[in-house]
């Protein structure tokens, strides 16, 4: 069920559910000095779902995840992971979750096996159970052959895989993944996305933060879009794109003219619903029908002595949803 959030949000009414709830967040807030990093965030995640927190850098995704991982104490609200409160039952929450941080959180001077053994012990594994689990994870992340090598000599993709493996050691019920594909090659990215799907097929609940809409679209049962510390909308992919209706998204690059001037002229055209100026001086338009409007755009540009150097037309997607709701592009925020 689609829900476009308007402030103030009603706690506990984030979505309708059919299955048991793995994560329930109610009115979560966090301030850093005078900055409101997260404001009144509420949502729920059913067991066995993959839910993505999608938003630009600084949207509050990582802060939200940090509170759900008991790393930060919320200033307001509360959340329950497998019915354990993050405020009053942190130890139980920590046992229920696995966290894959955004950065590589491994000891580079230790080997893959030593890292897994250490983290396994920190999660309370001992003896044969630990040994067996370490071997399973090494197999799972494809590092059995390299288990004795220092992590410092691993490739970026190998580190990423081991980084995920550590979070799975104690068989958590809920897995948090904080932008796990940032800065890696396409092949490793593909491997990670496939791993997330595989884990989910095995019943794991995954809360995944990203600013890549393609990842959110591919992986998620539901998507929660955040901006400036708030949840601005949440729902399934299909539900979200309906917000922008049948609008197309056109990215244009122009030269020999002040972009602001042409933006104003284009916005005045019939069929152009929104025009936004990007940081690289390109322009993004939401239009009713790109086929009809394109000749008019060229005509206006020519009239201003401008030259359109590139045109990119996209059908409705999450980027368009974000643009529609915030007036900014996901990548430009």
């Amino acid at each position, binding site marked *: 069920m689609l829900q476009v959030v308007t402030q103030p949000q009603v706690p506990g009414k984030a979505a309708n559910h059919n299955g048991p709830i793995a994560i329930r967040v109610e009115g979560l807030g966090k301030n850093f000095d005078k900055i409101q990093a997260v404001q009144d965030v509420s949502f729920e995640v059913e067991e066995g779902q993959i839910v993505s927190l999608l938003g630009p850098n600084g949207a509050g995704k990582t802060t939200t995840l940090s509170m759900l991982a008991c*790393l930060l*104490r919320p200033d307001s609200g509360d959340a329950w992971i497998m019915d354990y409160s993050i405020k009053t039952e942190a130890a139980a929450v920590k046992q229920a979750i696995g966290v894959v941080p955004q*950065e590589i959180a491994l000891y580079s001077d*230790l080997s893959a096996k030593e890292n897994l053994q250490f983290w396994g012990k920190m999660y309370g594994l001992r003896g044969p159970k630990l040994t067996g689990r370490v071997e399973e994870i090494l197999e799972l992340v494809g590092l059995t052959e390299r288990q004795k090598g220092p992590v410092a000599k691993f490739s970026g993709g190998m580190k990423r895989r081991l980084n995920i493996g550590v979070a799975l050691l104690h068989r958590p019920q809920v897995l948090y993944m904080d932008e796990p594909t940032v800065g890696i090659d396409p092949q490793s990215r593909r491997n990670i996305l496939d791993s997330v799907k595989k884990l989910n097929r095995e019943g794991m609940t995954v809360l995944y933060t990203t600013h890549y809409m393609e990842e959110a679209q591919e992986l998620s049962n539901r998507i929660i879009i955040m901006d400036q510390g708030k949840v601005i909308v949440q729902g399934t992919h299909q539900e979200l794109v309906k917000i922008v209706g049948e609008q197309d998204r056109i990215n244009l690059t122009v030269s020999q003219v002040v972009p602001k001037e042409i933006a104003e002229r284009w916005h005045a055209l019939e069929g152009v619903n929104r025009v936004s100026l990007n940081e690289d001086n390109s322009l993004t338009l939401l239009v009713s029908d790109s086929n009809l409007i394109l000749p008019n755009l060229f005509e206006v540009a020519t009239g201003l002595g401008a030259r359109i150097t590139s045109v990119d037309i996209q059908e409705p997607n999450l980027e368009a949803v974000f643009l529609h709701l915030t007036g900014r592009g996901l990548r430009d925020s």
Partner: protein
Amino acid sequence: MRIFTLAFKDLLQTTRDVRTAVFVVVMPLLFTYFLIAVNGGASGSSTDSRLALAFINHDPNGIVSAQFFNLLGNSEVVRLGVPDENAQARISEQVRDGTYTAAVIVPAGYSEQLIAGTPVKPQVIVDQGSESGQSALNAIETASDRLQGALQTARQTTQTFEARQPFTDATARQNFFNEALAAATGAWKTPTLTVRTEQGGTQSTGNQVSPATQLSPGILVQFVVLGLVSICVVFFLERKTQTLSRMLTTPISPLGILLGHGLAMAGLIFFQEILLITFGQIAFGVDYLRDPLAVLLVMVALAVWAASLGLLIAVFARVMEQVVMFSLIAMFTLSTLGGCWFPLEITGPVFSTIGHLTPSAWAMEGFQNVIVRGQGIGAVLLPVGILMAYTVVFFSIVTWKFQRRTSLNMA
């Protein structure tokens, strides 16, 4: 259990860092060896760590003064030196500058007057404000009391003997008296009861300390700070990367994390202490084994305090270079003010007072109370207590800062 896991991991990482071998083993051993050698303490001449006592005898042929010399010579606290005539003229100055802890000047006619029953006391020059001066004075008074007792015994014995069988002449009487006095004095070599006075005062000495007894513990105290660098880096890097964040998502508490890192630091420092104390004992005869339990107490207190300092450095440092810089600043400041390189007493009262505000001065005090002043476990309790108090203060600051850095609720 997780605390030990974390400590073991830290030590595993530390042993793989080449800085550990340099800062914990190589540099302190080399510094200890070369500094003691340069200061003339490598030949083993410093094995007698008793306090130097000048004995100036203006009654050279007296039987009583000779026995006084013997009694003092048997002391475990002082070692006798007989200055030449030039030195005798400057004896007050030599006590002040630390050549001697104290001086005993036996006046002319001392033996004759005592035998005759006339009270006469030797002159003593000593700084009573210093703990070693007090120790030396105690030793002198003990010897003097024993001499008085022996004299009394010899007198009584002679009179008793004379009552039963008169002496043939005065010489025979004098010989009998001399033998009785020698026998009574000699009996003090194996007293039936030995009382050792242990003092826990704040005045330290050291101005009579041999190079080895000063520099061996001095380098040890100095290098516990530098030895922390590599393990501080481990904790610092953990803080700067997301490994600390990841650790905080496991069931270990934030306090447990601090204790785990602290345990590793204390363990590493304790290993370094064992190494340097063994080296000092074997290579330079520094008598750490005089009271092993007392030395062990100081070692543990020093290691725990150093660990709290290491945590403090690791928590406050913002960049890697600051870890090394803070360690070096701490090392040089604490070494200089704490009397690691030279005895605080030769620096004057102001410097000495300031010095005693540092934990390093108390660590030195603890070690030297045993190896220099020959005192026991009672004399290290105050230094150990002060080191532990500093540990509590440092650890409280660390906990506060760690909480702020991680925005965590430490409860």
